[in-house]
């Protein structure tokens, strides 16, 4: 799962409903039998996609996710990019591309801060199947 997707996914357990704490899911508690594993996977660079999706990124949640995954280098506020083809924006767009699209969470656990449900990621695939009593 890409960091981009981690910025959009939320808990779907019944008890969470529209609780503000069901997003973002947290990577701060991992289990020894499923240690957190990240990998870099090349994706074609598309400044247009980054510019399309950037307004929808929840920056504080991204800072939280990045910190929990060991990255504390992000700017504290969301950068504003008006022109994706301006040369002065290229490095920033490439950095965002690397972070959001090329950093894969291969395995680990995501925790809902509201209900405590743990979602496991194996082979880059998060498991969102819920037992019947947790379904809305």
């Amino acid at each position, binding site marked *: *799962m*890409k960091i*981009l*997707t981690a910025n*959009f*996914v*939320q*808990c*779907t357990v019944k008890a969470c409903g529209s609780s503000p704490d069901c*997003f973002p899911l947290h990577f701060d508690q991992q289990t020894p039998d499923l240690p957190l594993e990240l990998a870099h996977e090349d*994706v*074609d660079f*598309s400044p*247009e*996609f980054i510019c*399309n*999706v950037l307004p*929808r990124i*929840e920056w504080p949640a991204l800072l939280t996710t990045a910190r929990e995954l060991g990255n504390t280098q992000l700017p504290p506020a969301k950068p504003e990019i008006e022109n994706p083809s301006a040369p002065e924006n290229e490095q920033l767009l490439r950095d965002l591309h690397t972070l959001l*699209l090329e950093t894969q969470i291969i395995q680990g656990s995501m925790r809902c801060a509201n209900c405590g449900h743990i979602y496991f990621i194996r*082979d*880059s*695939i*998060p*498991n*969102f*199947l*819920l037992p*019947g009593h947790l*379904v*809305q």
Partner: protein
Amino acid sequence: MSRPEISAPPEVFYSDIESKKYTSSSRIQHIQASMTLRALDVLALPPHQHILDIGCGSGLSGEILSQEGGHVWVGMDISPSMLAVALDRDVEGDLFLADMGNGVPFRAGTFDAVISISAIQWLCNADSSNADPRKRLARFFDSLYAALKRGGKVACQFYPRDESQTESILNAAKSAGFSGGLVIDDEESKKNKKYYLILTAGNVNSNDI
């Protein structure tokens, strides 16, 4: 061929063997590709969109999304074997093991568009583990509506068992707030007739359901 959703729930039907058969059949690949292209045609999306693929299976549609227009996509499927085939094929989208009948797990305004090929008729099934089709349809469309940006579009090709299934699907979509309706291709042909549910999130001035 019997209709797969009548014989067993999807996670059972699409076992390892069925998943490999499904993905390697060139006839199925061809039909799946042509339906995906048709859905994209109706959606008329600009390039570089963020797209959700419901019932992504082994990623046959997703590959087209990556190739046609440089879209970034997330695929959901309830069948681990189908997703395993998608992993083997090294698709570019993110894959989720999830049941669409429990709602899509994404926050408000996540996606520009949604595509689904041959999947949403499964929502109408009542098997032992997921009893109430009405609830499943409502959870699915309500959460889908929320996960789309306003004005975001949906194209779902599906195989309704009968008219009442089509009705339930349309009603659930409408209750969730979608506008839109059905597009039927090859309406006269029993064999090739294809149903597409085409929706817009929010009241854009399109024909009402």
